[in-house]
């Protein structure tokens, strides 16, 4: 881009990703909502939005906005199970941790 050229606003994507972890597009969520889904846990099961690594940190609010756009009062919507943000940890680290703890305990016993 040459200097001084004005920034063009990017076109709004027609069918954006709502859940980036699981690559779920808005249209899939709209279809599920229109089929009658009001429990966001069930929505998660059907389209996988919120099942990825971030546990729904990005998509939950966006989906609530889609419910509003669809004219559904949020009082009719059940929120998904709240889960903390996770950093995915290797299974081996848990196993090793256990062994290290045991070794430390043994050393302490001596």
């Amino acid at each position: 881009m040459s200097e001084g050229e004005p920034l063009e606003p990017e076109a709004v994507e027609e069918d954006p990703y709502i859940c980036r972890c699981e690559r779920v597009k808005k249209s899939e969520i709209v279809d599920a909502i229109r089929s009658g889904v009001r429990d966001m846990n069930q929505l998660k099961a059907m389209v996988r939005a919120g099942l990825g690594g971030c546990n729904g940190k990005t998509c939950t609010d966006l989906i609530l906005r889609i419910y509003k756009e669809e004219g559904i009062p949020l009082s009719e919507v059940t929120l998904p199970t709240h889960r903390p943000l996770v950093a995915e940890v290797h299974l081996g680290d848990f196993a090793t941790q256990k062994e290290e703890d045991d070794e430390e305990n043994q050393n302490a016993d001596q």
Partner: protein
Amino acid sequence: MPTNKTYDVIVVGCGSVGNPTAYHLAEAGKKVLVLDRRPAAGQGDNKAAIGGVRATHSDPGKISACLESLNIIANWEEKHGFDVGWKPGGYCFPVYDETIEKSLKDLIPYQKKYGLDIKWVGPEEIKEIIPGVNPVGLRGGTYSPGDGQVSSILLPVAFQREAMKNGAEYRFNEKVIGYLREGDKITGVKTDKGSYSSEWVVLAAGADAAAHSELLGIDIPVTPDSHEAGITAPIKHFLAPLVVDLRPGPEGKTANFYFGQNREGQIIFCYTPKDLFIGTNRESISEFLPVLAGRMVTLIPSFKNLLIRRIWRGCYPMTPDGIPIIDYATGLEGLVLAVGMCGQGLMLGPGVGKNIASMIIDGKHLIPDEAQDCFRYDRDFYKKDKEALK
């Protein structure tokens, strides 16, 4: 407020058993109402299941019911055009212990008698079935290729949608607070939002079942205990079967453990604690991952690289002998009990639901007599010979 609407059958509980029961009844033309206190189908302990569906059991009741479940689940997408996450691949029990080898081998002729496709295979074959399995001391194991896995979060949607196509009504966020009765006949259900009449009521309330003892005036011997499970980030597909290691763990915390790879490529796992966590507390416990990790990494060393994504707990509604109650309620007309699935509701539910539909419509079980006897409500729950394969 809806009052005194009349149905052929009211199903109390829209979980792993109630939901397929409604599906089979509606498909047969019955007017069905399903009630659940939660906001959608399968949102209780059903969705906590890791998804294994096996007919590999040690009693004719569970073998027969689960063979029917496998038939329903494996053919679902072809029949109804809805993907339930079915993954064939069987169940494999790798064995390192002489006593376990004997008990599993002794069961095989009995399992075959009730129609299960199962065989004992040697260590070389186990190494092919479970790539990367620890070969040290491996004696062989059982393999039942007809078993498989299903998505415990998609299956409830599938049953509800088909049941609704056939006219079944579902009412969520509605709690059953009592029963309508005339003498010894149950004639309907009272909820926190209304009353509904019916010819039949099916109690499929899972971990809540015992709370209905008082409402019904009968003893329902179901006590929940809580089990933990987890899932990893996806990895390349390498594991076809659900794997069960029946050895108690050297750490003194685990009675056995099991895992599989789901259709998304995630490893999904669970263990049976040596000392049960009685009750319905579903909060995670800090020892779960360190204990489980030790077992997983010992059995398949390369599992050390798996990335843990999420853990959760769900309840097993246990009967004293570990076998469900699927029977007409003694002393109460118009009531069928489908309770105490003992952590196997997901795999039992589709077959059990079909059997219950037959009990109501034709007045008889579909499963063989010996299988019915296993599930009887008036059996001795405390007899000595315990279930060999839980």
